């Protein structure tokens, strides 16, 4: 007997077993994707009724997305992309730099720095939301007010313990010989970093890229604190204000929700392998 799994379901081939399996798997897919499919279909339907979804677009229409434009949804979407674009760029740069020091250098205080990174991961950002708003309103030493600026939404996500640790683990694997050979050839520190280490870490860049994207895209409390005026809103925090509209029903809300969901779903589907890899490594470290 062969066992590919604990329950050995795959080796059961009887008609009853196949029917049972189809039912279970079908149910799983329906339960977990149903709400998303319903959203997709309804956002292309004339949904004036605020109560229910349709699983098939009745009367296919783009009206909801046109109306969404009038409600500034595309401005919010643009804000989201600005924040996620610059935020992710910053986050990846910061992570790669920090990981290089942690993985390839030995120095006093390294354990302490590692502990600090872990501490930031143990500390849920929600807990510091209130004092963070005070700090953002008056940055110590800099006397800057970041409330109502894009920088206020971008800088706080710039350093993320998870990215740094994933990157560090990966960089440790790069053989020392490569680095030493380059050093003997007279390559400087930045050159070794930029032309040898970073290119070899491309798979890990995929991991921290896709995780960073979903993490920043999903930010809620931070833009809520930083963007008091609606022209700075990101799409997730704008959704609430799109709820009740007498003229268009829930159509605009559905269209906006779909637009808020799609980017991270696309990122996940495109980088699935990297995502799964980061998921298991992150969980083991967490």
């Amino acid at each position: 007997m062969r066992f590919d799994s604990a329950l050995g379901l795959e080796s059961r081939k009887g008609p009853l077993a196949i029917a049972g399996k189809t039912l279970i798997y079908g149910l799983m897919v329906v339960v977990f994707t149903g709400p998303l499919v319903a959203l997709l279909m309804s956002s292309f339907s004339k949904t004036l009724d605020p109560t229910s979804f349709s699983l098939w677009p009745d009367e296919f229409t783009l009206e909801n997305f046109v109306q969404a434009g009038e409600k500034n949804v595309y401005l919010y979407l643009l804000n989201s992309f600005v924040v996620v674009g610059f935020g992710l760029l910053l986050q990846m740069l910061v992570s790669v730099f920090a990981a290089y020091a942690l993985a390839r250098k030995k120095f006093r205080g390294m354990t302490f720095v590692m502990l600090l990174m872990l501490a930031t991961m143990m500390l849920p950002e929600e807990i510091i939301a209130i004092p963070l708003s005070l700090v953002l309103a008056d940055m110590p030493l800099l006397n800057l007010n970041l409330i109502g600026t894009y920088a206020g939404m971008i800088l706080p996500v710039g350093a993320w313990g998870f990215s740094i640790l994933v990157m560090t683990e990966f960089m440790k694997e790069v053989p020392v010989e490569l680095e030493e050979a380059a050093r003997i050839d007279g390559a400087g520190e930045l050159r070794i970093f930029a032309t040898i280490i970073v290119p070899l870490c491309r798979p890990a860049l995929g991991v921290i890229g896709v995780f960073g994207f979903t993490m920043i895209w999903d930010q809620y409390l931070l833009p809520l604190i930083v963007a008091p005026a609606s022209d700075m809103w990101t799409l997730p925090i704008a959704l609430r204000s799109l709820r009740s509209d007498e003229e268009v029903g829930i159509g605009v809300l559905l269209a906006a929700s779909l637009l808020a969901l799609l980017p991270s779903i696309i990122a996940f589907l495109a980088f699935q392998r990297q995502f799964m890899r980061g998921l298991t490594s992150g969980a083991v470290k967490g």
Partner: protein
Amino acid sequence: MTSTLTPARSSAAPPHRRTGSVRWRGPVIAWLFLAPALVLFLYFKFIPMFVGLWKSLFKVQTFLGDEWVGLQNYQTIISDDEFASAIWHSIVLALGTTVGSIVLGLGFALLIEGPARYLWFVRTAAFLPVVTTMAAVAEVWRIMFHPADSGMLNIIIGWAGVDPQPWLASEDSSLWSIMIMSIWRGTPYDMMIFLAGLVGVDRTLYEAAAVDGASTWRRLRHITLPALRPVFWILFTLAAIRGLRVFVEVYVLTNGGPNGSSEVLMTLIYKLGFQKNELGVASAGGIVLFAATLALTVVVQMLRRRQTT
């Protein structure tokens, strides 16, 4: 953070010129590479943490200046009924979501374990809730939870002959409804972690058990579950860190209502801080939440130690 920089400088005095300069350069370069991360962490994690601790001892007033009140903010929290019920709701929600997601996640993981192509499809599809934007998903569920007979979930339970439920609209069911959505989003994540753990289970043990004539249940009970023990602890620890801080779900679905029946710590802190401008009390609330998270993590770790020794 200046104190963390001193080790680099203290080793900066080279005894020998040549080797010394190399030894001196290494640490400085390391700290330079670390600097962006450390500065950002300092400004957006550590300083806020200390500001929170500090402000929790004051009555924070925008124009009149802060007034030292000692531990009075904490006293307010402890004696306040709203806080007590918010803490209780947070714990119930965290515990229910954690247990529900782990049990269902394990069940589903066992059902879809295997290398077949269609199983990969099921896994990918089932995983989608995890990567979706919380705020948008919560809006979708808010619509599905609509209490009228025509609400999506009421139609579905209607097929099973169950009467329409008020879901989010009733004090009795609001918290449970939020929990349902949280479990829906948490289960696939746990499922994936379990699946990763199942890969590591020694296949020869299954075969040996089959030769000995062990039933599927016994195989599960004595081989699979013990092998997954580390995974359980990982998921519990993660849940301990994440569970109590829930905000977006509640804020979008009910905003704590109706009548405070689903108010959790974070929504209460948010309201105190940004709507009532009680920044001192809100900061103290944040510290309490931090202490609770820390305590829970320590307890889970201690249980884990005891289990493994």
